[in-house]
């Protein structure tokens, strides 16, 4: 059963199967490969068209790598990535360039993702020139439309990135990503470098644009609060693997995997009454190195409910009654009720 069937019932836009990325670790003068960092380790994920998938995890979980793999900005070690009916991993350079018109990206830091030597209007025009071959007046009008779309005055087209605040520039980066009217936009931590008040303007904009244009998002963030606000579904990654994936409200209000529970309880709620009445699950230790992940379930070294089977066997997929896919030995694959105590 795929997530698309479990979820909204729409056709899958992106279907990733067994996607793996191992980065070689090279040492010495001869650049000998002495090991591999398993950044992404066999991930299956489906994004239905027009829906948004939030992807959370801590640094080193492989979430950004997964986003770049989805767009084939880096080459996967193995696995297939179907975008509609073409396998992105097998496309030749020319067809890959052509398909990029339908899949775009918004990066974390707008100041480094916009060329400081080009005017912002020129940066927004780049996909229009490259992908749609627009020139002259037509190009200019379209750039102006895109500035209006992200609620900025088109008169700012000739300005340079350093003249904008982080929030404004990120809105321009969104305009660039939407220029070719893509079906999928991968947003890699789009608000984590912004201040609280400007963060809100970008989140609102992304949410509005999805309503207006029906784009699918892969929304990568470490902040579950932000992800829940913009996502239909949420995936949780730990050490290169997807450990839980399901409807956003289900994952947020009744997390199944012990890691998701710990992650949620670790985020302080900005309300002293609520926050001080919660019992926090404090995980022991640090994230193990992805170059040498623990055997069996990657989470077993820090899991409060660890059993012998967890150390030896990779946990199987279980689908719970609310449609959440979980990889945990505590949850029987039959889909019976959750055995783990629910998060506070």
């Amino acid at each position, binding site marked *: 059963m795929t997530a698309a069937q479990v979820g909204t019932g729409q056709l899958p836009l992106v279907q990733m199967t067994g996607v793996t990325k191992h980065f070689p670790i090279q040492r010495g003068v001869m650049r000998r490969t002495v090991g591999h960092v398993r950044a992404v380790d066999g991930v299956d994920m489906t994004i239905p068209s027009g829906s948004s998938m939030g992807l959370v995890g*801590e*640094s080193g979980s492989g979430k950004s790598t997964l986003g770049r793999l989805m*767009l084939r*900005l880096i080459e996967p070690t193995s696995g297939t990535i179907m975008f509609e009916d073409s396998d992105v991993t097998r496309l030749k350079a020319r067809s890959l*360039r052509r*398909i990029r*018109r339908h899949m*775009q*990206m918004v*990066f974390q830091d707008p100041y*480094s*993702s*916009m060329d400081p*030597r080009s005017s912002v209007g020129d*940066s927004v025009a*780049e*996909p229009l020139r*490259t992908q749609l071959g627009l020139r002259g007046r037509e190009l200019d009008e379209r750039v102006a*439309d*895109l*500035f*209006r*779309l992200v*609620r*900025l005055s088109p008169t700012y087209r000739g300005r*340079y990135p*350093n*003249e*904008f*605040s982080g*929030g*404004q520039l990120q809105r321009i980066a969104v305009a660039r990503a939407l220029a070719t*009217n893509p079906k999928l936009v991968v947003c890699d931590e789009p608000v984590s470098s912004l*201040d*609280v*008040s400007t*963060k*809100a*303007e970008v989140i609102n904009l992304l949410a509005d644009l999805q309503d*207006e*244009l029906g784009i699918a998002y892969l929304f990568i963030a*470490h902040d579950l*609060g*932000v992800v829940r*606000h913009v996502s239909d579904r949420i995936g949780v990654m730990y050490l290169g693997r997807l450990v839980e994936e399901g409807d*956003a*409200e289900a994952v*947020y209000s009744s997390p199944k995997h012990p890691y998701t529970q710990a992650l949620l*309880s*670790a985020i*302080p709620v*900005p*309300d*002293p*009454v609520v926050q001080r009445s919660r019992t*926090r699950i*404090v*995980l022991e230790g*640090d*994230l193990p190195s992805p170059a040498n992940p623990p055997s069996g379930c990657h989470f077993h070294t820090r899991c409060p409910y660890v059993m012998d089977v967890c150390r030896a066997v990779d946990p199987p997929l279980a689908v719970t009654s609310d449609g959440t896919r979980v990889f945990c030995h505590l949850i029987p694959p039959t889909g019976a009720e959750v055995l783990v105590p629910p998060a506070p």
Partner: protein
Amino acid sequence: MTDPIVALEPPELSSAVTTDELRSDELANTPTSWRRAVKRFVGMPVPMAAFLYIVLLLILTFFGHLIANHDPIDQTAHRFAGLSGNHWLGTDDLGRDTFSRLVVGTQVSIRSGFQAILQVLIIAMPIGLLAGYVGGKIDLVILRVMDAINSFPGLVSALAIASVLGPGLNNTIIAITFALIPGLVRLVRAQTLALREETYVEASRAIGTPIPTILRKRIVPGVLSPVIVATSLQLGYAILLEASLTFLGMGAQPPNPSWGNMLQRAFVFIFTEPLQVFIPAVAIALAILSFNLFGDGLRDALSQIEVKPPKGVKRGRLGLTSVKDATPETTQPAGTILAVQGLTVEFATPAGPLTVVTDVTFDVKPGEIVGLVGESGCGKSVTSSAIMRLIASPPGRITSGRVLFDGRDLLPLPFAEMRKIRGNDIAMVFQDPMSSLNPAFTIGNQLVEAIQLHREVSKADAETRATELLDLVGIPDARSRLKEYPHHLSGGMRQRVLIAMALVNDPKLVIADEPTTALDVTVQAQILELLKKLQREFHMAMILVTHDLGVVADICDRVAVMYAGEIVEQASVHELFANPRHPYTKALLGAIPQLAGSEDRLTTIPGVVPVPSLWPKGCRFSTRCEFVTDQCTAGPVPLEAAGAGQLVRCVRHDELAAQGAKVEA
């Protein structure tokens, strides 16, 4: 073609276009970097003089034969005629006018320099771009070939090539070109390699822009400025090579004049007629020097970082923030461990002193955790550093206020006294644990040093104490960790070490500046639990500087919200979250996704935090406040008491609280 984006755009959108203000500090609104560089270059006297000399050389190159007052190959005058009104620089051994030969000979040096460099650019740019952008095997082969050429000195390889090709100016230029290629290829390659990793290049790839276009639009402009600098430096070297090769008989052939063959000819008579050697030698040296000085000036003009601090601003020594007329005051308010009163901090700028923190007043009771909250640029970090007097003076200076700590005013204290307090009675924990620890020493070394700095204890006792402290902050296997270096530890462990260092002398107050911002959430949770435990066990007071209202809600007792250098609201943590009174506090709380329902829109605050030079008169939030009236901008707004022990800096707070109550009812 239909235009789906425009078609989908609701009609009211165009009117909803916000007119956000752009950033208006000094960094913004400057002309593009090239225009700025030219402006900066014109202001530099020595490179400008070099530039003017180069212009003179170029004039001589094109019009030298018009300026020369004799035919340079006319041998009718006396040999070694000496200086005269007719022969300004005398004549050579064949009776040719030296001035005319020098002027006409300019053409050979300058032309060969420029021609060689142009050829180098045409060949080296594409090779360097290819090696840097494509990488892999192609890069390796190109690099090895360049290394092979580079392993001979430039003059030797040029000489070898010139002797194979035979004498003559054109062959000399080819030889010079060959000798100069490797340097430029390496430069272009290194620059390309760095630019290739830029996110905006990745963004272009994500857009699907073809590689040639990426190179032309994103890489070449970035490679250009270092290449231009290198080119002007290499021009000097090319001229030297040409002169050297000609001196050795390879280049421009007699009787046509060039600086190199003038030197060669005169060299035979160096003991009898030294002036004739001296003249072309000076011409060569001056040309090379001017190209080098011009290149250095260009580099300074093009570099983003200011070479010199702006005029009128001197960098002071780090150590102690200076204080303007500090009058000692020793009455500590009852029941406080720290009382900050009217603290005002200014920074010297080229435009004059700029106040960045204004009249900050708050106190901390023993065992209390006070949060100092605000967005970037609100002055919260400056405030916390000013309490410890850690801002360098100049440019920073405390212009008024008092910092009363445990019965003493810290502001009038001399450096030695202040140093006794730092790390002893007041300790600090910073955001980035890696840069606060010395990577060259083990954490044991650093802890022992901190312990022995304030206490006379033996090394063994200090180590025991260090182990206890690491235990206390939850580092497993503390004894053996003492021998590890900071880079062996994870970010969370490093932050624990820093906290252990802060605890070395049982401080009465800890100032923690964004202690969990650089950490992942599950690690942040560990550190927050640790801070709570320490505060409970040791009854330690703490100032927690943070932008994260979740962290505040978790561990603070009281909160001061800062905006544009001022405290705008101060309250107990429960009051602040339950009844925020300042419109800015309200907006901040409304902007947090976790508090809003998943379907709600988040509150946004129009515009950006103004920079200190543009703080509005009266209420500093007035430019972005939805409740602004004329009375807000009339004059400075005082911090007033409101509700249960709350303080708020808003002229309409009573009115707005009443309105809010009405709406809710």
